[in-house]
């Protein structure tokens, strides 16, 4: 008789409790809160070799300008501890070519596209928004008013509340979809700039862009980047980014936030959600791990499932409530102590 080896059936994969990953940004519903970050995913086709970009909540393009732009000379990049410095200088094909070549591909692929736009005048921003008006597949415009790698570096719109507000008013008027302002953390009070953008017409905020940084090459004894200074990104800036999201959420609890800055794991993404972001962008992590956005999404879903949280939207801003409850408890304690003191005095 032939001996039959009975292989035990693979234990069924027991999924944790299902988690509703849908999230809403300015009235637009996305299937999950995982987005790419502007300038870290080009226009989609490169990353689509590694994962289906339509599986993302949204795809954020590299910033588009009115005209084609060659960017800055090389070297454009330096690795730093848990981060990198870049000085690309907004290299890109210009809006016409983007609309003709890249946007149709993203739309055809089924991606929910967030088009990042950048300009050096309010007129340029307006023109970009007009060109995108009514285009299929565009679910939102992210207005990059905070790129540190432009010639007019001293006059970045995001460093001036009045200028930031004026850009957002112009784009909001020209646009048929929600407009988000992408802000720089390199300001004295980010909540002031955020409020000005919302007053101007921004439907939401993308927090944050890179921090301005610098590396000196000690062998050549000169700046490592041809552009001298550059934008710092990666896990090194995450605590700064989380702080910015926290402060803006405190100041503007009803304004939706797309959070980004050094997200590499599901736990990092959860930090941003707890601080008040309704969705997050995975940026620099893609350079080290092309599949990072969907991996981070998977990790986030598992974390929520383990904690028995049924809806990702439930954790948005939750750290503020926890903090508030703790503050109230602390106040109560103080009151009790005060009561004791009073009692003693009475006695």
């Amino acid at each position, binding site marked *: 008789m032939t001996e039959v080896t009975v292989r035990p059936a693979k234990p069924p994969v027991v999924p944790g409790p299902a988690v509703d990953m849908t999230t809403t940004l300015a009235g637009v519903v996305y299937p999950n809160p995982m987005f790419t970050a502007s*300038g*870290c*995913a*080009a226009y989609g086709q*490169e*990353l689509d*070799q*590694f994962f289906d970009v339509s599986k993302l909540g949204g795809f954020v393009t*590299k910033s588009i300008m009115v*005209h*084609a*732009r*060659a*960017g*800055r*000379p*090389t*070297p*454009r*990049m330096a*690795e730093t*501890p*848990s*981060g*990198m410095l*870049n000085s*690309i200088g907004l*290299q*890109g094909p*210009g809006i016409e070519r983007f609309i003709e070549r890249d946007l149709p591909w993203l739309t055809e692929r089924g991606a929910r596209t967030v088009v990042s736009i950048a300009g050096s005048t309010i007129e340029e921003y307006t023109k970009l928004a007009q060109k995108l008006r009514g285009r299929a597949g565009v679910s939102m415009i992210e207005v990059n008013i905070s790129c540190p790698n432009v*010639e007019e570096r001293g006059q970045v719109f995001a460093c001036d509340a009045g200028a930031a507000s004026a850009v957002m008013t112009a784009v909001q008027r020209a646009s048929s979809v929600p407009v988000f302002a992408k802000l720089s953390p390199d300001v004295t009070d980010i909540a002031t700039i955020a409020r000005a953008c919302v007053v101007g017409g921004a439907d939401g905020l993308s927090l944050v862009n890179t921090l301005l940084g610098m590396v000196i090459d000690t062998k050549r004894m000169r700046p490592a980047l*041809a552009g001298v200074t550059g934008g710092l990104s*990666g*896990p090194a800036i995450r605590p700064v980014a989380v702080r910015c999201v926290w402060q803006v959420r405190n100041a503007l609890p009803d304004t939706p936030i797309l959070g980004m800055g050094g997200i*590499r794991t599901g736990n990092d993404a959860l930090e941003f959600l707890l601080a008040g972001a309704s969705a997050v962008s995975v940026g*620099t*992590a*893609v*350079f*080290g*791990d*092309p*599949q990072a956005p969907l991996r981070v999404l998977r990790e986030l879903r598992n974390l929520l499932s383990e904690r028995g949280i049924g809806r990702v939207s439930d954790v948005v801003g939750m750290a503020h409530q926890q903090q508030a409850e703790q503050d109230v408890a602390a106040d109560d304690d103080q009151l009790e102590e005060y009561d004791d003191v009073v009692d003693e005095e009475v006695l």
Partner: protein
Amino acid sequence: MPPVQVVGEVLAVKRTGAYMSMTLVAPGVAEGAKPGQFVAVAIGGQDTGMILRRAFSIYAVKERGVYGGTVEFVFAVAGRGTEWLARQRPHDPIDVVGPLGKPFKLPAHPAVCTLVGGGYGSAPLFALAETLRARGCKVNFVLGAATADRLFGALDAKRISTLVAFTTEDGSQGETGRVSDVLPDIIDKSGTEVVYACGPMGMLRAVAEIADYHGIPSQLAVEEAMACGIGVCMTCVLPVRGDDGLTRMVRSCVEGPVFMGDSIRWDALGTVPADCVGAPR
């Protein structure tokens, strides 16, 4: 063949002269890889502070080894990332993406080809030599380095070449000097019809100029600093003249690393030339 990202396994790490070579079992990367393509390797382990990949030319592939497809690359220990890589041992996991980039183009007919390598830049030329020979091409080698221990693959070059020349800057092997000192002579003697090269930019420029002077095409694999290797970061650009005559800042990771020598704007390397598409107005 599109690139894949896999967690490979170290099969071997060995010293070779002044360099190291690493062989990874990396299914999907080896299959379909062509000479001139490269891999991008994650370094430092999961929680590392070194967040960018390191790119290396593919030296050799075995599509069906005992353990599955393997890919071998050569590197110099030049910083903390490559130090970490050199410390890895058989069975250690390494995340690798590849094959990446455009390979060397092959001549349509059996041609006389001269392959020029500087330092371990010669690594991708040996697989190229095999492919060329299989197509009936004659292959010559010119290898140069600062010192003899930095000549990579000298024995293989001798074995497979019709004509071969070595140069070292200290005279410890072959002619004293640089590859550009001996290349014109090799081209003339062998009747070279195509030049292939990989190495530092200064050497590539000299090779391109010599090929141009002889009226023959050159195909050069450039080594630009990359953050991603897959075409999304835009850091590895250089000014290249297209078929339409216009110069653009192109990504060496996806539009290269192999370029025609006469398409690279050598006069403008490290700058954005004023006549470049999208140059500052």
